[in-house]
Structures are given as structure tokens and as C-alpha cells.
């Protein structure tokens, strides 16, 4: 499968090589909306986006051009802040478009702070099929779309081959389908010296990725309509018991976390470079960190698999929404359409690829909520850059997007998340058993939904 993808990409990349520069130049011109932009005028007030990296800024420039010269785009610095947004709502002076975590969209939608995008989608003829279904579900509340999704940040396993070799672990056993084998591999890879953890075998990344472990069973932590929490289901309890056992093998959460807190996560001496971890599930952006800081690491990217061996990945990311009371919803709609369009993604992907190539650094791909953009970036822009581990990781990440899921939207999404995080922390701290703790979380989540529905 991976070989076929890679082969196809190489062929397409070779055939398209001559035309790439011209294609990117064409892509840089927002063709779809430029014809109508001449008539646009006014000011578009954005909140929560702010200047970011080359990918963010490049798309912002693309979207600004797509609105035409008659539109002034006001994009102040800083990310989305609930308190600040509440103040804007209270003053009846809301921005035209906001950029925020998709996990928060349901809460604001349930409280009518965002408008459904139905008319925006219709008037701008936005093709929803281009977006990944799971990412779109994450912003769909009671059958209506409230935001357009951006990145996906899919999760794969990062396996440190050097650690596996040192521990005599068969890399095939570092997988999530067979929990017995995974636990055995964890025990072999971890290292405890003088009572202190000096290497983590397998980090299950709880509480952050708890929904992924529950999905191993095919279950969700909340019903599809977002109104019934399932935090104390048999599957959730089993997932917590297992992931907790992986941490207990290290001598407990105290030792585990105290050691993990010492990692140079974003630096040259990161936990992979220093062989401080055997394997762990991680979001796609971390490949970029490793490629930039420790390109020589010997890693393998693997799918996080469910109990049947099928790949699964947990989508998280941001999206664009229009607050109720926005003065320029029309401009906001055009903006978010442009920001999430295939052309915008292609433009910035090409620029980043060229930049990385000039710098002699790896291009580890862009993983968007736009499936068509992902395919085009991979087929038209991505080229293997010579470091096998990262080139293969890109293939895995592109494929992983197809198997994404998201926690269903709930009017009490933030409180449900906090309830299971607190429950897991109580278990990790040894204060409660998984069942008792998740029972308490379930009670809290039920109460939260009752308050918010």
C-alpha cells in the first residue's frame, strides 16, 4: 500500500516537475473568487488567527487577495480567548470571523453565539465534500455546519527504532492491536535506574488521547448527537485500565511524569534523539519538530490501530466560524472559503516545500482537513527528500487521514472533556479506581449536558 502511494507520487512528481513552478504561480492567484472581488468593499475583522507561521501567513495573504483591494482585512495578533470573545459578545461588537479550536465550536453553536453556515455554503457554493468527513462532523451541530475545518493533526505511532533494537524488541510488536504484546514491549523498552525512570517504554499519552484508546473498541466517549456521555462505558473503563497499566509498569505516574517533564520536547536533545522513549502516539506536527531539530533520528511511523488491526486516528484542529451579529458575514464567508481552499493550501505547500529545499531541510507535508488539498499536495508537490524515515512517515500520515474520527459535538464539550481529564488524573494519582473515577466523570458530564442543552 505504502509502496504504491510512494511510487505514484514519484511518477506524478517527475511528470509534473516542469510545470510545478507555473502551477504554483497560477495557484498563487486566487482565481475562483477574484472575478467577483472587484465589487467587494469594507473591512473584515478577524479574531483568533493573528500572524502565524509561513503556512498561516501565506494563506492569509491568499485570502486577502481573493477579497480584492477594496476590502481591508483587520487581523490583530493573538489566539482565540474565551474571555475576550465573551467581552466582545457583551459589547455587541463581535468580529466578522473567528478562528478557534473545533472542540469549542459545538459549545458556542449550542449557545447560539455562532451562525449556521447554511446560507454561506449555498451562496458561495462551497463544496463540503472536499473536507474530511470527521473534521466536518466536529463542527456540525444538530445537522447544521457551524465552521469550516482547517488542519487535522492526525495521530500516528512514532517508534524509536534505536530503543527497540537496544531492548531486543521486535518492531512488529510495537503496535496497538494486540495489547498484551504492546505491554510486553513496553516493559522491555522502559528503563528504571536507582528508582528513577530514565526511559519510557510506551507512552499512551493519556489523558489527551483517551478518546483514541476508547475508539480502539469502536466506541465513543459521547453519543453521536452529543447529548449522552459514555465516560463510564465498559470500553472506556477497559481503555483506562490498560493505558494506566502501561504507566504503572514504570513505577507509577509520579516517576513517569517527573521524567517526562524533563524532556527537551522541541529541541535538538529531544526525547527521541536522546533515546528517552521507545514509542508513543503523537500528532503529525511532531515529525516537523524532529525533522528540524534532529533529522538523524531513526524512527518509524506506524498507524494507531484498533482491535481488528484497522488504522484509526483522532482528529483535532481549528476552524473558522461566523459569530452571530457579525457586520460582514458575506466577507467572512468568502474569507473562510479561501482560507480552506485547495488553491490556498497548494500555494503555501509549494512555498514551504521550496523553502525547505533551499534550506536543505525535510518537508514533512501539510495535513489539512481538505482531502482534495492533501491529495494534490502529496501528488503534485511532495518529493522524497532523501531521509527515508521522514519520507515514509509522510506516506503514512497522508493515508492516516482517511481513518480519522473526532469526538462528537456536544453542547457541553468542554465540560465533558474536563470531566474525563480529571477522572484520568485521579486514577493516575492513585486516588480512585478507573471505574469509580469514570463513574464520577459520567455524573459530572450528565450534569453538564443537563445545564447546557
Amino acid at each position, binding site marked *: 500500500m505504502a509502496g504504491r502511494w510512494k511510487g505514484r507520487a514519484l511518477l506524478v512528481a517527475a511528470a509534473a516537475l516542469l510545470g510545478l513552478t507555473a502551477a504554483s504561480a497560477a495557484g498563487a492567484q486566487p482565481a475562483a473568487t477574484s472575478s467577483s472581488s472587484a465589487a467587494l468593499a469594507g473591512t473584515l475583522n478577524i479574531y483568533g488567527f493573528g500572524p502565524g507561521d509561513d503556512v498561516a501567513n501565506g494563506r492569509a495573504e491568499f485570502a486577502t487577495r481573493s477579497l480584492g483591494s477594496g476590502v481591508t482585512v483587520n487581523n490583530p495578533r493573538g489566539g482565540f480567548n474565551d474571555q475576550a470573545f465573551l467581552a466582545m459578545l457583551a459589547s455587541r461588537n463581535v468580529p466578522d470571523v473567528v478562528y478557534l479550536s473545533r472542540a469549542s465550536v459545538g459549545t458556542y453553536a449550542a449557545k447560539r453565539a455562532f451562525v449556521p453556515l447554511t446560507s454561506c455554503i449555498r451562496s458561495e457554493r462551497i463544496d463540503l465534500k472536499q473536507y474530511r468527513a470527521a473534521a466536518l462532523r466536529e463542527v456540525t451541530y444538530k445537522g447544521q455546519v457551524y465552521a469550516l475545518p482547517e488542519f487535522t493533526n492526525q495521530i500516528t505511532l512514532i517508534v524509536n527504532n534505536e530503543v527497540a533494537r537496544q531492548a531486543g524488541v521486535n518492531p512488529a510488536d510495537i503496535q496497538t492491536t494486540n495489547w498484551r504484546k504492546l505491554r510486553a514491549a513496553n516493559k522491555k523498552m522502559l528503563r528504571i535506574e536507582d528508582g528513577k*525512570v530514565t526511559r519510557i517504554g510506551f507512552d499512551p499519552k493519556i489523558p489527551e488521547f483517551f478518546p483514541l484508546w476508547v475508539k480502539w473498541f469502536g466506541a465513543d466517549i459521547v453519543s453521536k448527537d452529543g447529548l449522552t456521555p459514555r465516560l463510564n462505558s465498559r470500553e472506556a473503563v477497559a481503555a483506562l485500565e490498560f493505558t494506566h497499566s502501561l504507566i504503572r509498569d514504570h513505577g507509577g505516574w509520579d516517576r513517569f511524569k517527573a521524567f517526562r*517533564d*524533563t524532556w527537551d520536547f522541541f529541541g535538538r536533545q529531544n526525547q527521541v534523539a536522546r533515546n528517552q522513549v521507545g514509542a508513543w502516539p503523537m500528532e503529525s506536527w511532531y515529525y516537523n519538530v524532529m525533522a528540524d531539530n534532529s533529522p538523524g533520528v531513526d524512527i518509524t511511523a506506524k498507524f494507531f490501530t484498533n482491535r481488528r488491526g484497522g488504522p484509526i486516528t483522532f482528529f483535532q484542529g481549528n476552524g473558522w466560524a461566523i459569530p452571530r451579529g457579525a457586520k460582514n458575514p458575506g466577507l467572512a464567508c468568502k474569507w473562510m472559503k479561501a482560507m480552506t481552499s485547495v488553491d490556498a493550501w497548494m500555494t503555501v505547500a509549494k512555498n514551504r516545500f521550496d523553502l525547505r529545499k533551499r534550506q536543505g531541510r525535510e518537508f514533512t507535508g501539510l495535513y489539512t482537513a481538505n482531502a482534495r488539498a492533501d491529495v494534490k499536495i502529496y501528488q503534485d508537490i511532495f518529493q522524497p527528500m532523501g531521509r527515508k524515515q521522514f519520507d515514509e512517515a509522510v506516506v503514512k500520515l497522508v493515508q492516516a487521514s482517511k481513518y480519522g474520527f473526532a469526538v462528537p459535538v456536544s453542547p457541553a464539550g468542554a*465540560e465533558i472533556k474536563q470531566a474525563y*481529564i*480529571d477522572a484520568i488524573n485521579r486514577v493516575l494519582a*492513585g486516588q480512585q479506581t478507573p471505574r469509580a473515577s469514570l463513574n464520577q466523570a459520567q455524573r459530572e458530564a450528565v450534569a453538564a449536558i443537563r445545564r447546557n442543552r
Partner: protein
Amino acid sequence: MPGPRKGARRWFSRFTRAETWVAYAFILPWVFGFLALTAGPMVASLYFSLTNYGVEQIAGFAPTEYVGAQNYRQLLSDEKVRTSLYNTFFFTILSVPAKMALALGLAMILARLVRMAGFFRTAFYLPDITPPVAIGIMLLLLFNGSVGIVNTVLGWFGIPGPFWTTDPNWIKPSLVIMSVWTIGGTMVIYLAALKAVPRHLYEAAAMDGAKPWRQFKDVTLPMISPALFFTFIVLTIAGLQTFTEVYTAYFGAGSAGAEAPDAALMNVVYLFRQAFEFFNMGFASAMAWLLFVIIMIVTVFQFVVSRRFVFYQGEKG
């Protein structure tokens, strides 16, 4: 004792004098600030605590509805309210005496210093101007169970340090120890009080054969008791309202709420989360009023008890 009518008449009669008007003109900015920025929001929050106030009501999408005592009933059933109150009292009961004792100790040393007294006063006060956010981050670095300085130093003496930031039994003690970082202000108050104790009292006590401990117990403590009482009240209220350091260390953006141990959940932290992360403004307002009532009860209790221990010079005996 003058009756209320007589008292009121006397109070109004003072306004015939120009000095009274000038005095009130001087305090008018404060009165305005108090009414607009403190009393006003307090009354508003009392009203919100009896309503379903939330995002829709803030934005004007839905009317604010009276819900009676529902938010207050929820205070009783919410397990985290109990947890947060327990944590807050635990922290306050340990941190207030610790801060007072250390500040007094330092002040007594400084009061005796002749050379470089100014330098040490400044040096001991400096930590007080550390931003609380920095203290929260520093806590995680100093108290890391594996590589933190605190455990490293304990290790030199053969003491295996606990996992301060992850073990629920040690999270609050580490917060208490960290709170001692900011005793500079209290120390300065004590230093001023110590300097104001008349020397002749010590000389008289010494002539009567009082040893240093007896002088401290029977001269120093009574003479600085108003300062001790003032800091006791202020530190208790501050302890019950602890927020920034704890929020930064365990609940802030860096941890994305994923650390958030129940052992560190202080009452105001939970209140903030209810208001600004979960948007339950009515419930958060009820929490604020519960805390206000608790602080009032504690403060009144402290005032009542203080009558037996605080000695004000010039008072009729």
C-alpha cells in the same frame, strides 16, 4: 450611648464645617471607584447567582431568567466544590502561619542588623515583586520529582524527596512552600512594627530578669500584635482567594488543562473555570458569593478572637 437618631443628627451636623466637605472630596474618587468597580459588580453577581446567566444572556440572544436557589443547590451537590474548598482551606491554614512565622523571623534578624541592613531589606523584599505567573512556572521547575532543585538538595542529606507536583499528598505542601516566596511585604510590616517598640520596655524587662524568650513573648509580641493581626487577616483572605500561581502551574494554557490535578483545584480556580471555560456564569457567581460569605465568617471570627490577643497602645485598659 447616643441613640441612632441622635447619632445621625451629629453625623449630619459635621457637614456644617468646611473640613468635612474637603475630607469627603478627597475620598470621593475612592468611593466612586468602590461603587463602580467593586460594589456594583458584587451586586450584579448576587443577581446573576440567582439566574441562568451565560453566553446567550451575555450576548443578548436570550433573556436572563430567574432560577431561584438552583445555583446554590448545585453548590451542595457538586463534588468539585467540596474538593476545591477543602484544598483552599488546607492551603490557607498551612500557608498563613508559615508566612507569618518566617516573615517575623526575617524581620527580627533585619531589625538587629546594623551593617548592610538596607541591602538585606531589599534582597528579602525582591522576591515579592516576582510576577505570580513566574512563580507558578518556577514551582514546576523547582519541585520536579526527578530533577528539581528541591529534591536535589534533599538528596545531599540522604532524604529521598517526594514527587511534589504529581503526588496528590504533596501538591498542596509544595504550593504552601512556594507561597513563602512572597513574604517580603509582610516582613516589611513586621520590621516597621519592631522598630516602633520602645527600647525602654526591653530595658525594664531585662532589669526584671527577663531572658530573650520572655522579652519576645511578653514585650515584642504584644507590642507588634496589631501588625500581626493585620497581616493575619490580609494573608487569610489572600489565601482563600489563591489563584494565579496555581492556575499557571496546573491549569493554564501550557498544560491545556490536561494536568489539572484535583489536589490543586482551589476554589477560585474552579470558579474561573466555571465562568470562563464552561460559561456557567450563574453558578460561578453563586460560588463567588459562597466564598465571600466564608471569608466574612472567618474574618469576623478572627476579629472576635483577636480582642483577647491584640494590644493597641493608647487603648483604655
